[in-house]
């Protein structure tokens, strides 16, 4: 009797097992399209880039041979027709740091200010208006600002008014320093709303009871901000600033558009632009791939930092 029972059990178990297996097969089948896609358009290219970076491959001509580390030596020591990688790294870092520090500070201030508004409707309005530039494409943004930065344009008029000078041309698009400032202003303008919203999301997740407790204890608003809001917002700030950095490291359209508009290339020759010109315009695929790998490594470091920041953000409990 007990044998028959265990036999029955076994049959049932087998049946469940086969249903589960059938389901598991479906589950795997659902992921296959994505996997194939990622294999072709992500994993294969990065391996391909790595291999190509050790060859002297060019766009024209099929033959190429392995040259070892020659490309890496070249991009780090030679001046690559007037536009060395070292200059690109400098331009990228100046742009990244110059953009993300003011962006984080200002968007944090804006977000805290917006949380102070009496009605959610007001906050919604400002969110919408601050976010609007992000909707325009980078090319459009660059086109608008190119005219604003024109010697006779709005920006000179405004800065002359602010600086109490008259008829001074600040050379927004020509001067090596000013052109970098200009790209930073454009980028700042375009993405400020985006980061304000990120901070508002962070601020909104802080429970109001903490503030009520602080108010009951007689904490001033200033004190509350420094002692409660800021520490609780630390993980959000860390995450957002690394995100902003990653975003800035990848910038291309703004600089490219300004260059096409007649600005000097060297001061704004960010890494992506150098890759484009070396690989596509000059056809030096091997060198461009080596630069891509350098960019990849830089971004990998920042992504790692982002992961660490994300982990620490999970540690905060309210």
């Amino acid at each position, binding site marked *: 009797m007990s044998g028959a029972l265990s036999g029955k059990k076994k049959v049932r178990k087998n049946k469940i097992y086969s249903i589960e297996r059938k*389901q*598991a*097969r479906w*589950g795997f089948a*659902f992921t296959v*399209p*994505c*996997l194939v*896609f*990622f294999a*072709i*358009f*992500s994993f*294969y*290219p*990065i391996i391909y880039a790595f291999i*190509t970076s050790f060859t002297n491959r060019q766009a024209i001509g099929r033959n190429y041979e392995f040259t070892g580390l020659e490309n890496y030596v070249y991009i780090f020591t030679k001046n690559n027709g007037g536009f060395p990688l070292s200059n690109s790294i400098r331009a990228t870092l100046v742009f990244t740091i110059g953009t993300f520090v003011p962006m984080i500070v*200002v968007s944090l*201030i*804006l977000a805290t*200010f917006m949380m*102070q508004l009496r009605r959610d409707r007001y906050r919604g309005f*400002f969110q*919408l*208006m*601050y*976010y609007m*530039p992000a909707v325009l*494409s*980078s*090319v*459009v*943004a660059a086109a*608008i600002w190119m*005219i604003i930065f024109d010697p006779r*344009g*709005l920006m000179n008029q405004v800065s002359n008014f602010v600086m109490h000078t008259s008829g001074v041309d600040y050379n927004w698009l020509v001067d090596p320093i000013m052109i970098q400032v200009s790209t930073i202003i454009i980028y700042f303008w375009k993405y400020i709303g*985006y980061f304000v919203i*990120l901070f508002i*999301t962070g601020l909104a997740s802080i429970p109001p009871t903490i*503030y009520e407790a602080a*108010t009951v204890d007689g904490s001033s*608003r200033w004190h509350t901000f420094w002692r409660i*809001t800021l520490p609780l917002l630390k993980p959000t700030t860390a995450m957002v600033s690394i*995100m902003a950095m990653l975003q800035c*490291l990848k910038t*291309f*359209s703004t600089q*490219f*558009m300004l260059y*096409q*508009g007649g600005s000097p290339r060297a001061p704004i020759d960010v890494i992506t632009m150098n*890759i*484009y010109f070396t690989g*596509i315009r000059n056809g030096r*695929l091997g060198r*461009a791939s080596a630069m*891509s790998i350098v960019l990849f490594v830089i*971004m990998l470091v920042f*992504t790692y930092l982002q992961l660490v920041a994300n982990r620490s953000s999970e540690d905060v409990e309210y």
Partner: protein
Amino acid sequence: MNKFVGKISFVEILVWIFLILVFFFTITPIAFMAVSSFMDARQILDMPFRWIPSREYFSSADRTFFTNFQKAILGNNENATFFRNMFNSFFVAIVDSITTVLLASLCGYGLAKFRFKGRNFVFMSIMATMMIPFEAIMIPLYMVVSGMKLMNTYRGLIFPFMVSAFGVFQMRQYLLTFPTEYLDAARVDGLSEPRIYSSIVLPNCKPVIATLGILSFRNQWDNLLWPLLVAQREYMKTLPQYITQFSEEKMTDEGAMMACAFLASIPMIILFFSLSKYFLGGAAVYESRKG
């Protein structure tokens, strides 16, 4: 933060002043674009700038209200590729956002609701692709696409952005909270797995679909780098390329340049105001692999 109660305080006034100043900073360039798309170069670069064009200006013989827009559409050599390029932008962005939503939801569903061997490995390897920036693989991708003979084709423009790892991640996170009982009930009722996906899972993740679809549409609409590599024929170019080219040759005709930029922005502005909820929601989540 403790909200203000009672009377309007000094701090509150400062807050408002600051917020309004930034409001002017973000809106002025957009308003400038809209206004100056109706002006000619002389008026745009007038010192001081006048926001409202004078009446006699419009009544002059060689200018109508839409002169700039006409120039923008006719383009550099008067063969009007504008509409074709706009169509290309729309087509690529729409196809990419549809495939992103479909493939990512399918994959996210598979990862969230099924147990199979190697599931974690699949998930981790998809997450790993988020660390590969597009800019680092564009050169090999260009070689792959040109090797597949896809230069100057829609497939070449569309394929590399058909799905995003971030989308898969979003979908998975969302579907993890989806009650499994529904799925089991459907299975008991005899629905096949693909049917369960299409008639139960997909209709139930509308909010993520909207956010993800908009995000991917916007990224493709904004994409300049990839079309620059793949589309070299006039009729295959996209709108960002058109604007770049147009402004290169029309450097001195600022009015036409602004009209061109304005025309290109109208679809996104309409989309933004009609679906702002999803735009602002989508901004809160971060797209790490932006095209």
